[in-house]
């Protein structure tokens, strides 16, 4: 395999995150494990891809905020909680699991960045 060829990895090797909820709105942080990984998530974890990831929940809007000093993205996703904690019939009516769901999204990165990824090493 060509050593300069980009490698596909799940986002959870590159970033971590947490979900918060207010009413029918979810916010999900996506935080790079290492500053060198920040350009990867900034370029690839786009609002469009996040909206597609949660398509089954029919988000009405996905807003992305970038925080380069924290190497973090904050996604604000509207109308994905079936009305929110008091209305949803979901067991997880807060949508607490959504961050870990999003972390399964695939991303690609140059092989030289693998050393900064989290999880079992070497790949």
């Amino acid at each position, binding site marked *: 395999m060509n050593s300069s060829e980009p490698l596909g990895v799940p986002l*959870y*090797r590159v970033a*971590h*995150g*947490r979900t*918060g*909820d*207010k*009413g029918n*709105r979810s*916010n999900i*942080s996506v*935080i790079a*494990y290492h500053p060198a990984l920040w350009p990867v998530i900034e370029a690839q974890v786009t609002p469009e891809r996040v909206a597609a990831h949660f398509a*089954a*929940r*029919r988000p009405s809007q996905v*807003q992305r*905020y970038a*925080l380069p*000093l*924290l190497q*973090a993205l*904050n996604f*604000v996703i509207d109308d994905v909680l*079936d*009305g*929110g*904690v*008091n*209305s*949803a*019939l*979901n*067991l*997880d009516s807060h949508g607490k*699991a959504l961050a*870990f*769901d999003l972390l399964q999204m695939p991303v690609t990165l140059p092989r030289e960045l693998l050393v900064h990824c*989290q*999880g*079992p090493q070497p790949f």
Partner: protein
Amino acid sequence: MATTTPDPLLTSWPSSPAHGSTPRGALLVGCGAGFSGDRTDAARPVVDALMASGQPAVLIFETLAERTLALAQLARERDPLAGYEPLLADLLRPVLADCLAHGIRIVSNFGAANPAGAAACIAALAQELGIRVPRMALVHGDDLMGAEHAQALQQACGADWPAARVVSANAYIGAQPIAEALQAGAEIVIAGRVADPALVLGPAVAWHGWAWDDWDRLARGTMAGHLLECGAQVCGGYFADPGYKDVPDLAHVGFPIARIEADGECTISKPDHTGGLINARTVKEQLLYEVHDPAGYLTPDVVADISQARVTEVGPNQVRLAGVRGHARPSHLKVNVCSERGWLAEAEISYAGAHALARAQLAQQVIATRLAGLGAIRCDFIGVTSVLGDDQSQWLAQLPAAGSGLAEALNAPRDVRVRWAWEQPTAQQAQLLLREVNALYTCGPGGGGGVRTQLRSRLSTVSCLLPRDLVHCGWRWWNPAMPAFAPESP
């Protein structure tokens, strides 16, 4: 752990703001609970650390979520002595005597719908412990259930105003009454619906004497409060992901302490000899928790801006937050209006072993047929798809049909728990689902077991914005002659 004799100069707080005078040393604020139902043994190590520091210190308990207050209001309707945090005595019993003896002030929203009831509970606890009754201040003004607010609330909610009976209406009020009560010498400040970070901002303003338009400092104190308000969530709680984000001794996770400087910047740490972890990662996750626009985090006291914030690891389990800015506070306060809303029926049954998924799908069809036309039912196959699914069961519709061969080919799970959830206007109607699922024992697919059912009333919440001059908040001293539920004084 060594304890120090409290220094009266350190533990006496300014009676008037020290703004403009010599900056004071740092204030320590520890957190003993991050939600209603949090661990009752969490505060003890925090208080030990605050005592050992010999520095001026405050202990906060954050115990109110969006719907906790409505539940408290319902509890108070049933019993005028109730309506405050149900675990209050359990939270305070391990630490009350030491906090009083060492000048550690206590600030909390555990008053919920009945701050005077909470004070009476604390007075009774003090008697039980054989210590003096503390000087307690009650914060008021958040409760908007009085007739004088009805018109303004309905106007603010507009079309969202609930048709059903309103159970609670509370404004998120700010830190000012807390700060004033502390400066007047309150040892315990008992609030209801204050903005969570105000539990930390109030003490910081009282100690450092910040002005109420010193937006940068108010924002820094607010974000210190934001990091503390969920208890262990900044210390490795709600964080661990084995192999990716490992946390030592999670079973004994420590709760956070913020050291807040005169300029508002803060360092987060936790007591020695506790589990958990504080590093840049845990702090970043909590910093962004429940935040929308990072440049405009709205609170009653200030609009905080963390878009230029930085977190730095300054020692083992010590992280400093810097770079927070503030903008003028909003003209309106957020109000949550809770109303009654029907009944939720939930029922579960398990199918395991051969063809578990096929039998689960057949059970789903049986229930759908039996209750056809009576309203939408959510169905989950726990172990296949549940919390990632949606209320309209669009995910389930994508599953292959039982017996099609596809389900079997999909390496079908061998242990599936089927869960139904159904909302109905009355308990009697909602009960129908529970009976139908129970009947699957003899009338459903083969081998179903472990039926559990639950029925409970639900509440609905809408939010609106009210001009802040319509909300009159303040504080007063508690005294033993007060009725447990004291209607608000004008």
